[in-house]
């Protein structure tokens, strides 16, 4: 079975994000970029499936600007076998919307015929949480979202999902789209031999047009603002005072 893992190049989770002066978005110039952490978990899971003999090839795909090549090299250094870069924008500030990404991914899936698409449940830059679901709809495949455990058994997969209030276990037919959550695994570091091998692994470059998809934005960003700064708290001296303050605040 072949596993396809879409990965997104996003602003590094350690970076303190700054809004551009004109409010049109977040400043990405000279900012450290990394693989979306949820996608890293998806790559790790795919590699583990391969190590367990349940997958025979792991293909990473990224849709975005040319620089997403670095993100794919990271996936290759972790252990993916090959990579596909779909260039769909020139400006690093252009975010390709989920539907366009899902349509391009459908094109990739049609070509590659994977038995499983493993992707992050959402990207940490815009938190859309939509691409995996849209892809499954476009393909007519089963979907299992927010996976914290994945067990592939021939024609079906048993997936434990992190839902509000607990865990839900479902069984889906393969092929399927599985979106992964934080607790599925702990991604490995890229080993030195794999870093050195990554450059020699194939990385195909395509464009959105190759899949007949128009990736231009449909959403208009009206405004981007910094979150409101949190006001300083106060220390209370006793339980009585705490209750008093909570009453004042109208919460009890």
């Amino acid at each position, binding site marked *: 079975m072949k596993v396809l893992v879409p990965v997104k190049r996003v602003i590094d989770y350690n970076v303190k994000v700054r809004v551009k002066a004109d409010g049109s978005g977040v400043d990405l110039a000279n900012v450290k970029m990394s693989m979306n952490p949820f996608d890293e978990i998806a790559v790790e899971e795919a590699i583990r499936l391969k190590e367990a003999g349940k997958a025979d090839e792991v293909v990473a795909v990224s849709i975005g600007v040319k620089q997403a090549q670095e993100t794919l090299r990271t996936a290759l250094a972790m252990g993916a076998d090959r990579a596909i870069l779909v260039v769909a924008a020139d400006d690093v500030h252009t975010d390709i919307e989920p539907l366009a990404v899902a349509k391009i991914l459908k094109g990739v899936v049609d070509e590659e015929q994977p038995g499983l698409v493993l992707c992050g449940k959402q990207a940490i830059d815009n938190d859309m949480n939509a691409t995996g679901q849209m892809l499954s709809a476009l393909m007519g495949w089963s979907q299992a979202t927010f996976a914290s455990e994945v067990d592939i058994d021939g024609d079906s997969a048993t997936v434990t999902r992190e839902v509000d209030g607990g865990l839900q276990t479902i069984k889906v037919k393969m092929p399927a789209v599985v979106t992964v959550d934080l607790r599925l695994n702990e991604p490995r*570091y890229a080993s030195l*031999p794999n870093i050195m091998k990554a450059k020699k692994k194939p990385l195909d470059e395509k464009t959105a047009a190759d899949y007949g998809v128009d990736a231009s934005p449909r959403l208009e960003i009206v405004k981007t603002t910094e979150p409101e700064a949190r006001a300083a708290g106060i220390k209370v001296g006793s339980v009585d005072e705490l209750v008093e303050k909570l009453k004042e605040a109208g919460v009890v």
Partner: protein
Amino acid sequence: MNFGLSDEQEMIVSTVRSFVENEIYPHEDLVERTGEVPSDLAQEIKRKTLDLGFYACNFPEEVGGAGLNHLDFALVERELGRGSMALTHFFGRPQNILMACEGEQREKYLLPAVRGERMDALAMTEPEAGSDVRGMRCTAVRDGGDWVVNGTKHFISGADHADFFIVFIATGVDETPKGPKKRITAFLVDRGHPGFEVRDGYQSVSHRGYKNCVLEFTDCRLPDAQVLGEVDGGFDVMNTWLYATRITVATMSVGRARRCFDYALDYAAERKQFGQQIGKFQGVSFQIADMITEIDAADYLTLASAWRLDQGLDANREIASAKVYATEMLAHVTDATLQIFGGMGLMSDFPIERFWRDARVERIWDGTSEIQRHIISRSLLRPLGA
């Protein structure tokens, strides 16, 4: 000219950086508090480094290393420099000088060191022989076919965890027009060898947990098979293989300075006095400007000296410049950061006081600042006859 890193180099940096942040930082307080690295923790760091293929990455592939060149290795060490030396010691980088091993020595010392099965330590310094290496008193004399060694070595880093030692010992004296000059030989000595003892050394203000030890030789018999390189060829192996180790000190100083600087920058942006962030006061902001300028300068100077080695160019003067500049830069950056933190910087609640203490030794070991300045100035003035 290209100052950018390749994709591989970016990934090497990012892997080692994550490793240090996740596997080293969380244990630093423990090491500071106890002055020890628990052996299970040491083994865990070593195992993870082996799994990642980074163990002995400075060794060529034909002996089982990763074959990194000097520049790539400098990037690895720069990131390691961010973390506690007591802990990153187990991100093993055996001494390159082991490449001088021949015949059975390869099976007994070189290969097990690269595989992480045996750890090494280098012993040169003596109580009476610091910068003046030839002043050493530890002496080996011929007795039958063997050497009999007597003397003391001290400040031997990593000796507490070493399974064997590369020890420089005087094996004779030449009369020269400038007076007597000792001949030096490098020996391989196993821990536990009769007549050889490893003792705890001194309490150091820098790098707590990265212990220094004393080595005692009392009528210790060593056969010729233990000679590394040639008899009386100690300076040859030293000059061939220890040449580059000063880059380690420079590059680790750069890594640590960057970590320290991040504290200074964040604190300057957050701490408020007189109704505004202290970073808005020129007294603080100009310190920030000076610090980052010096850090970048030291970084480029160091990487350029490693690059020169890879190109086969002369690098002795450049390495000396990098070592003296990077270590003095670290002294300034840690001191200035402490000043920005004020009284809080002296408290062990923040790692600033530790960076400040740790920085002090960098200007002393692996050739003092004075020795580096001597190397730099002699390389320029000697050709002019001065």
